[in-house]
Protein backbone atom coordinates (compact mmCIF):
# COMPACT_ATOMS: atom_id res chain seq x y z
CA UNK A 1 0.00 0.00 0.00
CA UNK A 2 1.13 3.53 -0.74
CA UNK A 3 1.34 6.10 2.05
CA UNK A 4 2.49 9.66 2.53
CA UNK A 5 5.38 9.63 5.03
CA UNK A 6 5.72 12.61 7.37
CA UNK A 7 8.71 12.96 9.70
CA UNK A 8 8.82 15.08 12.85
CA UNK A 9 9.80 15.58 16.47
CA UNK A 10 8.49 13.48 19.36
CA UNK A 11 9.29 13.82 23.05
CA UNK A 12 10.93 10.39 23.10
CA UNK A 13 13.05 11.29 20.08
CA UNK A 14 14.16 14.46 21.87
CA UNK A 15 14.89 12.64 25.12
CA UNK A 16 17.11 10.07 23.43
CA UNK A 17 18.63 12.40 20.83
CA UNK A 18 21.87 12.92 22.81
CA UNK A 19 22.29 9.17 23.03
CA UNK A 20 21.86 8.11 19.45
CA UNK A 21 23.52 4.75 19.78
CA UNK A 22 21.05 3.63 22.47
CA UNK A 23 18.37 1.01 21.91
CA UNK A 24 15.74 3.56 23.04
CA UNK A 25 16.68 6.02 20.28
CA UNK A 26 16.66 3.22 17.70
CA UNK A 27 13.26 2.02 18.92
CA UNK A 28 11.72 5.49 18.76
CA UNK A 29 13.10 6.53 15.37
CA UNK A 30 12.24 3.18 13.77
CA UNK A 31 8.58 3.46 14.79
CA UNK A 32 6.10 4.09 12.03
CA UNK A 33 2.88 5.58 13.45
CA UNK A 34 -0.12 4.51 11.37
CA UNK A 35 -3.90 4.73 11.42
CA UNK A 36 -5.37 1.51 12.81
CA UNK A 37 -7.59 0.98 9.73
CA UNK A 38 -4.45 0.98 7.54
CA UNK A 39 -2.84 -1.52 9.91
CA UNK A 40 -5.95 -3.67 9.74
CA UNK A 41 -5.81 -3.64 5.97
CA UNK A 42 -2.16 -4.73 6.01
CA UNK A 43 -2.88 -7.34 8.70
CA UNK A 44 -0.58 -5.66 11.22
CA UNK A 45 -0.61 -5.70 15.00
CA UNK A 46 1.12 -3.11 17.16
CA UNK A 47 4.87 -3.72 17.04
CA UNK A 48 4.84 -5.82 13.86
CA UNK A 49 7.70 -5.16 11.50
CA UNK A 50 7.14 -3.53 8.12
CA UNK A 51 9.30 -2.85 5.09
CA UNK A 52 9.05 0.80 4.08
CA UNK A 53 10.25 1.53 0.56
CA UNK A 54 10.95 5.10 -0.52
CA UNK A 55 12.55 6.75 -3.54
CA UNK A 56 16.06 5.91 -2.27
CA UNK A 57 15.73 2.40 -0.93
CA UNK A 58 14.05 0.49 1.83
CA UNK A 59 14.25 0.19 5.59
CA UNK A 60 12.57 -2.02 8.19
CA UNK A 61 10.52 -0.32 10.92
CA UNK A 62 7.86 -1.27 13.45
CA UNK A 63 4.23 -0.27 13.03
CA UNK A 64 2.42 1.43 15.87
CA UNK A 65 -1.24 2.45 15.93
CA UNK A 66 -1.80 6.17 16.40
CA UNK A 67 -4.92 8.29 16.71
CA UNK A 68 -2.98 11.32 15.48
CA UNK A 69 -2.57 10.37 11.81
CA UNK A 70 -5.26 10.02 9.17
CA UNK A 71 -5.60 7.00 6.89
CA UNK A 72 -3.09 7.10 4.05
CA UNK A 73 -0.54 9.02 6.10
CA UNK A 74 2.21 7.65 8.34
CA UNK A 75 4.40 9.53 10.83
CA UNK A 76 8.00 8.60 11.63
CA UNK A 77 10.10 10.48 14.24
CA UNK A 78 13.16 12.28 12.79
CA UNK A 79 16.18 10.04 12.60
CA UNK A 80 18.38 7.66 10.63
CA UNK A 81 15.58 5.22 9.72
CA UNK A 82 13.35 7.70 7.87
CA UNK A 83 16.39 9.38 6.35
CA UNK A 84 17.55 6.04 4.98
CA UNK A 85 14.82 6.32 2.34
CA UNK A 86 14.44 10.11 1.96
CA UNK A 87 15.67 11.63 -1.31
CA UNK A 88 18.33 14.33 -1.19
CA UNK A 89 16.76 16.69 -3.76
CA UNK A 90 15.99 20.13 -2.29
CA UNK A 91 14.25 21.91 -5.21
CA UNK A 92 16.85 24.67 -4.97
CA UNK A 93 16.06 25.55 -1.36
CA UNK A 94 18.60 23.50 0.62
CA UNK A 95 15.72 21.63 2.29
CA UNK A 96 14.85 18.03 1.33
CA UNK A 97 11.18 16.94 1.19
CA UNK A 98 11.24 15.57 4.75
CA UNK A 99 7.47 15.75 5.09
CA UNK A 100 6.19 14.80 1.66
CA UNK A 101 7.53 11.42 0.60
CA UNK A 102 5.40 8.69 -0.91
CA UNK A 103 6.37 5.27 0.45
CA UNK A 104 5.26 1.68 -0.05
CA UNK A 105 4.60 -0.32 3.11
CA UNK A 106 4.33 -4.10 3.38
CA UNK A 107 4.58 -6.55 6.28
CA UNK A 108 7.90 -8.33 6.71
CA UNK A 109 9.55 -10.88 9.01
CA UNK A 110 12.84 -9.00 9.11
CA UNK A 111 13.91 -7.10 12.22
CA UNK A 112 14.82 -3.38 12.14
CA UNK A 113 18.56 -2.82 11.94
CA UNK A 114 20.43 -1.01 14.69
CA UNK A 115 21.67 2.56 14.09
CA UNK A 116 25.21 1.12 13.94
CA UNK A 117 24.19 -1.34 11.22
CA UNK A 118 22.50 1.39 9.18
CA UNK A 119 25.64 3.55 9.36
CA UNK A 120 27.93 0.65 8.49
CA UNK A 121 25.74 -0.22 5.48
CA UNK A 122 26.56 3.25 4.16
CA UNK A 123 30.31 2.92 4.72
CA UNK A 124 30.70 4.06 8.34
CA UNK A 125 32.41 2.31 11.24
CA UNK A 126 30.54 1.93 14.54
CA UNK A 127 32.39 3.28 17.56
CA UNK A 128 30.71 2.36 20.87
CA UNK A 129 29.09 -0.90 19.87
Amino acid at each position, binding site marked *: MTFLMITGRTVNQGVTVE*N*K*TSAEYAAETSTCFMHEFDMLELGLDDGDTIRVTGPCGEVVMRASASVEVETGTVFVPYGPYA*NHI*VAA*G*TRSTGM*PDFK*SHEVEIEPTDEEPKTVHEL*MEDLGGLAYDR
Partner: protein
Amino acid sequence: MIVKDAVCPFCGCLCDDIEVEVEDDRVVAVTNACELGTTKFMGEKRMKNPILRDGDRWRDITYDEAVQYAADMLLSAERPLLYGWSGTHGEAQCVGVHMAELVRGVIDNTSSVCHGPSILAIQEVGHPGCTLGVVKNRADLVIYWGSNPIDAHPRHLSRYTRYAEGFFLENAFRDRKVIVVDIRKTETANIADEFVRIKPGGDYAVLSALRAIVQGKTDTIPRTVAGVTREQLVRVANLCKNAKFGAVYFGLGLTMTRGKYKNIRNAIELVSELSRHTKFTISAMRGHYNVYGSNEVNTWMTGYPFGIDYSRGIAFYNPGETTAVDILARKECDAALIVGSDPAAHFPRKCLEHLADIPVVQLDPYPNATTAFCNVQIPVAVTGIDAEGTAYRMDGVPIRTRKVLSTDYLSDREVLSRMCALMQEALER
Protein backbone atom coordinates in the same frame (compact mmCIF):
# COMPACT_ATOMS: atom_id res chain seq x y z
CA MET B 1 25.48 22.84 45.36
CA ILE B 2 22.38 24.22 43.67
CA VAL B 3 22.85 26.50 40.65
CA LYS B 4 19.85 28.78 40.20
CA ASP B 5 18.70 30.46 36.97
CA ALA B 6 20.72 28.14 34.77
CA VAL B 7 19.92 28.29 31.04
CA CYS B 8 18.71 25.14 29.33
CA PRO B 9 20.72 24.35 26.18
CA PHE B 10 18.19 22.16 24.41
CA CYS B 11 15.61 23.98 22.31
CA GLY B 12 15.08 27.53 21.06
CA CYS B 13 13.05 28.44 24.18
CA LEU B 14 16.36 28.73 26.07
CA CYS B 15 14.49 28.60 29.42
CA ASP B 16 16.49 30.63 31.92
CA ASP B 17 14.84 29.56 35.18
CA ILE B 18 16.39 26.13 35.62
CA GLU B 19 17.75 24.91 38.95
CA VAL B 20 20.53 22.38 38.72
CA GLU B 21 21.82 20.40 41.68
CA VAL B 22 25.46 19.41 41.36
CA GLU B 23 27.30 16.92 43.57
CA ASP B 24 30.91 15.81 43.01
CA ASP B 25 30.96 17.40 39.55
CA ARG B 26 27.87 15.50 38.47
CA VAL B 27 24.38 16.83 37.85
CA VAL B 28 22.13 14.91 40.24
CA ALA B 29 18.82 16.79 39.95
CA VAL B 30 17.17 19.32 37.66
CA THR B 31 14.15 21.45 38.57
CA ASN B 32 11.85 23.45 36.26
CA ALA B 33 13.20 21.97 33.01
CA CYS B 34 11.03 19.87 30.69
CA GLU B 35 11.83 16.23 30.01
CA LEU B 36 14.07 17.16 27.07
CA GLY B 37 16.10 19.66 29.10
CA THR B 38 16.33 17.44 32.16
CA THR B 39 17.70 14.55 30.11
CA LYS B 40 20.28 16.82 28.50
CA PHE B 41 21.49 18.18 31.86
CA MET B 42 21.66 14.66 33.28
CA GLY B 43 23.41 13.29 30.17
CA GLU B 44 26.25 10.87 30.76
CA LYS B 45 28.19 8.52 28.46
CA ARG B 46 30.40 11.31 27.15
CA MET B 47 33.30 10.40 24.90
CA LYS B 48 36.42 10.43 27.09
CA ASN B 49 39.13 11.54 24.69
CA PRO B 50 39.65 12.25 20.98
CA ILE B 51 39.51 9.19 18.72
CA LEU B 52 40.98 8.41 15.32
CA ARG B 53 39.73 5.86 12.83
CA ASP B 54 42.60 3.56 11.99
CA GLY B 55 41.38 1.14 9.30
CA ASP B 56 38.67 -0.97 10.88
CA ARG B 57 39.30 0.10 14.47
CA TRP B 58 39.32 3.19 16.63
CA ARG B 59 42.27 4.39 18.65
CA ASP B 60 42.63 7.12 21.23
CA ILE B 61 44.71 10.18 20.36
CA THR B 62 45.62 13.39 22.18
CA TYR B 63 43.88 16.74 21.74
CA ASP B 64 47.02 18.14 20.08
CA GLU B 65 47.07 15.34 17.53
CA ALA B 66 43.36 15.69 16.86
CA VAL B 67 43.51 19.46 16.40
CA GLN B 68 46.54 19.12 14.09
CA TYR B 69 44.69 16.47 12.04
CA ALA B 70 41.70 18.77 11.61
CA ALA B 71 43.85 21.78 10.65
CA ASP B 72 45.79 19.72 8.08
CA MET B 73 42.57 18.26 6.69
CA LEU B 74 41.00 21.68 6.16
CA LEU B 75 44.18 23.19 4.71
CA SER B 76 44.68 20.41 2.18
CA ALA B 77 41.05 20.30 1.06
CA GLU B 78 39.96 22.07 -2.10
CA ARG B 79 36.34 22.52 -1.08
CA PRO B 80 35.87 21.88 2.63
CA LEU B 81 32.42 21.97 4.22
CA LEU B 82 32.11 23.37 7.76
CA TYR B 83 28.68 22.30 8.94
CA GLY B 84 26.52 22.30 12.07
CA TRP B 85 27.02 25.17 14.51
CA SER B 86 23.52 25.29 16.03
CA GLY B 87 24.50 23.21 19.06
CA THR B 88 27.31 25.50 20.12
CA HIS B 89 27.76 29.04 21.41
CA GLY B 90 28.18 32.23 19.38
CA GLU B 91 31.85 32.66 20.25
CA ALA B 92 32.64 29.26 18.63
CA GLN B 93 30.49 30.15 15.62
CA CYS B 94 32.61 33.29 15.12
CA VAL B 95 35.81 31.21 14.97
CA GLY B 96 34.09 28.88 12.48
CA VAL B 97 33.37 31.74 10.09
CA HIS B 98 37.01 32.89 10.26
CA MET B 99 38.16 29.33 9.52
CA ALA B 100 35.81 29.03 6.53
CA GLU B 101 37.15 32.27 5.08
CA LEU B 102 40.73 31.18 5.69
CA VAL B 103 40.39 27.96 3.67
CA ARG B 104 37.82 29.30 1.18
CA GLY B 105 35.33 26.71 2.33
CA VAL B 106 31.57 26.52 2.62
CA ILE B 107 30.03 27.17 6.04
CA ASP B 108 26.43 26.10 6.59
CA ASN B 109 24.34 25.60 9.71
CA THR B 110 21.43 23.33 10.55
CA SER B 111 18.87 25.98 9.63
CA SER B 112 19.26 24.87 6.01
CA VAL B 113 17.33 21.74 7.09
CA CYS B 114 14.96 23.43 9.56
CA HIS B 115 13.96 27.08 9.18
CA GLY B 116 16.17 27.97 6.19
CA PRO B 117 13.04 28.29 4.03
CA SER B 118 11.56 30.63 6.66
CA ILE B 119 14.58 32.89 6.28
CA LEU B 120 14.19 32.83 2.49
CA ALA B 121 10.60 34.02 2.95
CA ILE B 122 11.68 36.70 5.43
CA GLN B 123 14.25 37.91 2.89
CA GLU B 124 11.37 38.33 0.42
CA VAL B 125 8.72 40.00 2.58
CA GLY B 126 10.22 40.84 5.98
CA HIS B 127 9.55 39.55 9.47
CA PRO B 128 6.79 41.16 11.55
CA GLY B 129 7.93 39.48 14.78
CA CYS B 130 8.28 40.32 18.45
CA THR B 131 9.83 38.88 21.59
CA LEU B 132 8.24 36.07 23.56
CA GLY B 133 7.57 38.44 26.45
CA VAL B 134 5.30 40.60 24.29
CA VAL B 135 3.26 37.55 23.31
CA LYS B 136 3.08 36.35 26.92
CA ASN B 137 1.80 39.67 28.22
CA ARG B 138 -0.38 40.86 25.34
CA ALA B 139 -1.51 38.10 22.98
CA ASP B 140 -5.13 37.04 23.32
CA LEU B 141 -4.86 34.76 20.30
CA VAL B 142 -2.03 32.33 19.53
CA ILE B 143 -1.87 30.18 16.42
CA TYR B 144 0.49 27.21 16.20
CA TRP B 145 0.77 26.33 12.53
CA GLY B 146 2.62 23.14 11.55
CA SER B 147 4.29 22.99 14.94
CA ASN B 148 3.77 20.74 17.93
CA PRO B 149 5.26 22.48 20.97
CA ILE B 150 4.14 19.82 23.46
CA ASP B 151 6.66 17.48 21.86
CA ALA B 152 9.27 19.89 20.48
CA HIS B 153 9.20 22.95 22.79
CA PRO B 154 7.38 21.64 25.85
CA ARG B 155 7.55 24.80 27.97
CA HIS B 156 6.54 27.25 25.23
CA LEU B 157 2.91 26.79 26.26
CA SER B 158 3.49 27.23 29.99
CA ARG B 159 5.98 30.09 29.78
CA TYR B 160 4.47 32.18 27.00
CA THR B 161 1.04 31.10 25.75
CA ARG B 162 -1.68 28.65 26.85
CA TYR B 163 -0.79 28.32 30.53
CA ALA B 164 1.10 31.59 31.07
CA GLU B 165 -0.08 34.63 32.99
CA GLY B 166 -0.26 37.84 30.95
CA PHE B 167 0.24 41.37 32.32
CA PHE B 168 -2.46 42.83 30.10
CA LEU B 169 -4.83 39.86 30.34
CA GLU B 170 -7.16 39.65 33.32
CA ASN B 171 -7.52 35.89 33.19
CA ALA B 172 -4.99 34.66 30.67
CA PHE B 173 -6.16 31.05 30.55
CA ARG B 174 -9.74 32.09 29.79
CA ASP B 175 -9.01 35.18 27.68
CA ARG B 176 -6.28 33.73 25.48
CA LYS B 177 -7.50 31.55 22.61
CA VAL B 178 -5.24 28.96 21.01
CA ILE B 179 -5.68 27.70 17.45
CA VAL B 180 -3.68 24.75 16.13
CA VAL B 181 -3.34 24.09 12.41
CA ASP B 182 -1.83 20.73 11.51
CA ILE B 183 -2.29 17.64 9.40
CA ARG B 184 -2.01 15.48 12.54
CA LYS B 185 -4.20 15.69 15.62
CA THR B 186 -1.21 16.19 17.88
CA GLU B 187 -1.13 16.55 21.66
CA THR B 188 -1.01 20.31 21.11
CA ALA B 189 -4.16 20.09 18.98
CA ASN B 190 -5.89 18.43 21.94
CA ILE B 191 -5.44 21.49 24.16
CA ALA B 192 -6.44 24.02 21.48
CA ASP B 193 -9.71 25.96 21.42
CA GLU B 194 -9.89 25.38 17.68
CA PHE B 195 -8.14 22.67 15.70
CA VAL B 196 -7.90 23.13 11.95
CA ARG B 197 -6.96 19.87 10.26
CA ILE B 198 -5.71 20.35 6.74
CA LYS B 199 -4.81 17.82 4.09
CA PRO B 200 -1.06 17.26 3.66
CA GLY B 201 0.43 19.87 1.34
CA GLY B 202 -2.61 22.14 1.69
CA ASP B 203 -1.06 24.91 3.81
CA TYR B 204 -0.55 27.35 0.96
CA ALA B 205 -4.17 27.04 -0.18
CA VAL B 206 -5.53 27.47 3.35
CA LEU B 207 -3.34 30.52 3.96
CA SER B 208 -4.52 32.03 0.66
CA ALA B 209 -8.15 31.34 1.57
CA LEU B 210 -7.71 33.06 4.95
CA ARG B 211 -6.11 36.06 3.23
CA ALA B 212 -9.07 36.29 0.87
CA ILE B 213 -11.56 36.15 3.75
CA VAL B 214 -9.67 38.81 5.72
CA GLN B 215 -9.80 40.97 2.58
CA GLY B 216 -13.61 40.55 2.52
CA LYS B 217 -13.71 38.15 -0.42
CA THR B 218 -15.43 35.23 1.33
CA ASP B 219 -17.66 34.67 -1.73
CA THR B 220 -14.67 33.43 -3.70
CA ILE B 221 -13.94 30.59 -1.27
CA PRO B 222 -15.08 27.09 -2.30
CA ARG B 223 -16.97 24.90 0.18
CA THR B 224 -13.76 23.26 1.38
CA VAL B 225 -10.11 24.22 0.99
CA ALA B 226 -7.58 21.41 1.49
CA GLY B 227 -10.08 19.59 3.67
CA VAL B 228 -11.04 22.65 5.76
CA THR B 229 -14.65 23.83 5.54
CA ARG B 230 -15.46 27.40 4.52
CA GLU B 231 -17.35 27.83 7.81
CA GLN B 232 -14.26 26.98 9.83
CA LEU B 233 -12.07 29.25 7.72
CA VAL B 234 -14.49 32.15 8.27
CA ARG B 235 -14.59 31.38 12.00
CA VAL B 236 -10.77 31.36 12.21
CA ALA B 237 -10.51 34.59 10.18
CA ASN B 238 -13.01 36.26 12.51
CA LEU B 239 -11.18 35.06 15.61
CA CYS B 240 -8.03 36.63 14.15
CA LYS B 241 -9.66 39.92 13.16
CA ASN B 242 -11.39 40.25 16.52
CA ALA B 243 -8.27 39.55 18.56
CA LYS B 244 -6.55 42.50 20.23
CA PHE B 245 -3.14 40.99 19.67
CA GLY B 246 -2.49 37.81 17.69
CA ALA B 247 0.69 35.76 17.38
CA VAL B 248 1.43 33.03 14.84
CA TYR B 249 4.12 30.46 15.64
CA PHE B 250 4.96 28.20 12.75
CA GLY B 251 7.06 25.07 12.60
CA LEU B 252 8.62 22.67 10.15
CA GLY B 253 5.14 21.64 9.00
CA LEU B 254 5.41 24.67 6.71
CA THR B 255 9.11 24.60 5.81
CA MET B 256 9.49 20.91 4.94
CA THR B 257 6.37 20.45 2.82
CA ARG B 258 5.58 21.32 -0.77
CA GLY B 259 5.99 25.01 -1.41
CA LYS B 260 8.55 25.37 1.40
CA TYR B 261 9.45 29.07 1.68
CA LYS B 262 6.40 30.09 -0.34
CA ASN B 263 4.22 28.72 2.50
CA ILE B 264 5.99 30.99 4.98
CA ARG B 265 5.76 33.94 2.63
CA ASN B 266 2.01 33.41 2.42
CA ALA B 267 1.77 33.15 6.22
CA ILE B 268 3.73 36.38 6.67
CA GLU B 269 1.48 38.10 4.13
CA LEU B 270 -1.59 36.86 6.01
CA VAL B 271 -0.14 38.46 9.14
CA SER B 272 0.44 41.72 7.23
CA GLU B 273 -3.17 41.57 6.07
CA LEU B 274 -4.40 41.00 9.63
CA SER B 275 -2.32 43.90 10.88
CA ARG B 276 -4.60 46.21 8.86
CA HIS B 277 -7.37 45.19 11.28
CA THR B 278 -5.53 44.54 14.54
CA LYS B 279 -2.03 43.79 15.83
CA PHE B 280 -0.51 40.52 14.61
CA THR B 281 2.96 39.01 14.66
CA ILE B 282 4.57 35.83 13.34
CA SER B 283 7.68 33.94 14.41
CA ALA B 284 9.39 30.62 13.79
CA MET B 285 9.61 27.87 16.43
CA ARG B 286 13.38 27.45 16.28
CA GLY B 287 14.71 23.99 17.17
CA HIS B 288 18.34 23.87 18.38
CA TYR B 289 18.99 26.15 21.34
CA ASN B 290 21.36 28.34 19.32
CA VAL B 291 20.27 27.86 15.72
CA TYR B 292 19.05 31.45 15.77
CA GLY B 293 22.53 32.44 16.93
CA SER B 294 24.15 30.68 13.99
CA ASN B 295 22.01 32.81 11.66
CA GLU B 296 22.82 35.98 13.63
CA VAL B 297 26.56 35.35 13.81
CA ASN B 298 26.79 34.35 10.15
CA THR B 299 24.75 37.36 9.09
CA TRP B 300 26.74 39.94 10.95
CA MET B 301 30.05 38.38 9.89
CA THR B 302 29.30 37.46 6.26
CA GLY B 303 26.06 39.19 5.31
CA TYR B 304 24.21 35.88 4.93
CA PRO B 305 22.43 33.64 7.45
CA PHE B 306 23.51 30.15 6.24
CA GLY B 307 24.98 28.35 3.22
CA ILE B 308 27.95 30.72 2.75
CA ASP B 309 30.53 29.82 0.12
CA TYR B 310 33.98 31.46 0.36
CA SER B 311 35.47 29.73 -2.70
CA ARG B 312 35.52 33.04 -4.59
CA GLY B 313 37.39 34.74 -1.74
CA ILE B 314 34.23 36.68 -0.84
CA ALA B 315 31.00 35.50 0.77
CA PHE B 316 28.57 34.00 -1.75
CA TYR B 317 25.13 32.66 -0.86
CA ASN B 318 22.77 30.59 -2.96
CA PRO B 319 20.56 28.13 -1.03
CA GLY B 320 20.09 24.96 -3.04
CA GLU B 321 23.67 25.29 -4.29
CA THR B 322 25.75 26.33 -1.28
CA THR B 323 23.76 24.38 1.34
CA ALA B 324 25.11 21.24 3.02
CA VAL B 325 22.62 18.65 1.74
CA ASP B 326 23.13 19.77 -1.86
CA ILE B 327 26.93 19.93 -1.58
CA LEU B 328 27.10 16.44 -0.09
CA ALA B 329 24.55 14.92 -2.47
CA ARG B 330 26.51 16.34 -5.44
CA LYS B 331 29.69 14.85 -3.93
CA GLU B 332 31.24 18.28 -4.14
CA CYS B 333 33.11 18.75 -0.86
CA ASP B 334 36.35 16.87 -0.19
CA ALA B 335 36.48 17.27 3.61
CA ALA B 336 33.99 18.08 6.34
CA LEU B 337 34.24 19.65 9.78
CA ILE B 338 31.08 19.00 11.80
CA VAL B 339 30.39 21.03 14.95
CA GLY B 340 27.33 20.85 17.21
CA SER B 341 25.03 18.73 15.05
CA ASP B 342 24.58 15.19 13.79
CA PRO B 343 24.09 15.12 10.01
CA ALA B 344 24.31 11.31 9.82
CA ALA B 345 21.05 11.08 11.78
CA HIS B 346 19.31 13.94 9.99
CA PHE B 347 20.49 14.00 6.37
CA PRO B 348 19.24 11.80 3.52
CA ARG B 349 21.32 8.67 2.91
CA LYS B 350 22.89 9.98 -0.29
CA CYS B 351 24.66 12.63 1.77
CA LEU B 352 26.00 10.00 4.17
CA GLU B 353 27.39 7.94 1.31
CA HIS B 354 29.60 10.90 0.43
CA LEU B 355 30.53 11.54 4.08
CA ALA B 356 31.88 7.96 4.10
CA ASP B 357 34.17 8.82 1.16
CA ILE B 358 35.81 11.98 2.53
CA PRO B 359 37.81 12.86 5.65
CA VAL B 360 35.51 14.05 8.45
CA VAL B 361 36.33 15.64 11.81
CA GLN B 362 33.57 16.15 14.35
CA LEU B 363 33.41 18.17 17.58
CA ASP B 364 30.77 16.60 19.82
CA PRO B 365 30.62 15.58 23.48
CA TYR B 366 28.90 12.27 22.72
CA PRO B 367 29.31 9.41 20.26
CA ASN B 368 26.49 9.93 17.76
CA ALA B 369 25.46 8.66 14.32
CA THR B 370 28.04 10.88 12.59
CA THR B 371 30.83 9.32 14.68
CA ALA B 372 30.70 6.30 12.35
CA PHE B 373 31.74 8.53 9.43
CA CYS B 374 34.48 10.40 11.31
CA ASN B 375 38.19 10.10 10.84
CA VAL B 376 38.59 12.02 14.07
CA GLN B 377 36.10 13.00 16.78
CA ILE B 378 37.03 15.51 19.44
CA PRO B 379 34.89 15.48 22.61
CA VAL B 380 34.15 18.97 23.92
CA ALA B 381 32.36 20.57 26.86
CA VAL B 382 28.61 21.07 26.57
CA THR B 383 27.64 24.72 26.33
CA GLY B 384 25.32 25.55 29.21
CA ILE B 385 26.61 22.63 31.29
CA ASP B 386 30.41 22.70 31.47
CA ALA B 387 31.07 25.65 29.17
CA GLU B 388 29.51 29.08 29.00
CA GLY B 389 28.77 31.19 25.98
CA THR B 390 26.17 33.29 24.20
CA ALA B 391 23.08 31.75 22.63
CA TYR B 392 20.14 33.40 20.86
CA ARG B 393 16.62 32.48 21.91
CA MET B 394 14.03 31.76 19.20
CA ASP B 395 12.89 35.41 19.34
CA GLY B 396 16.40 36.73 18.73
CA VAL B 397 17.20 37.65 22.36
CA PRO B 398 20.83 36.82 23.21
CA ILE B 399 21.21 35.01 26.52
CA ARG B 400 24.47 34.12 28.25
CA THR B 401 24.38 30.44 29.13
CA ARG B 402 25.99 29.47 32.43
CA LYS B 403 28.51 26.86 33.39
CA VAL B 404 26.98 24.63 36.07
CA LEU B 405 29.86 22.25 36.58
CA SER B 406 33.59 21.98 35.90
CA THR B 407 35.19 19.29 33.78
CA ASP B 408 38.50 18.94 31.96
CA TYR B 409 36.84 19.15 28.55
CA LEU B 410 37.77 22.09 26.33
CA SER B 411 34.93 24.20 24.94
CA ASP B 412 34.14 24.33 21.20
CA ARG B 413 35.62 27.82 21.08
CA GLU B 414 38.89 26.68 22.65
CA VAL B 415 39.32 23.71 20.31
CA LEU B 416 38.38 25.73 17.21
CA SER B 417 40.65 28.63 18.21
CA ARG B 418 43.61 26.22 18.43
CA MET B 419 42.70 24.80 15.03
CA CYS B 420 42.37 28.27 13.55
CA ALA B 421 45.73 29.38 14.99
CA LEU B 422 47.49 26.34 13.48
CA MET B 423 45.87 27.07 10.11
CA GLN B 424 46.87 30.73 10.21
CA GLU B 425 50.44 29.76 11.11
CA ALA B 426 50.66 27.28 8.23
CA LEU B 427 49.27 29.78 5.73
CA GLU B 428 51.73 32.47 6.81
CA ARG B 429 54.67 30.14 6.33
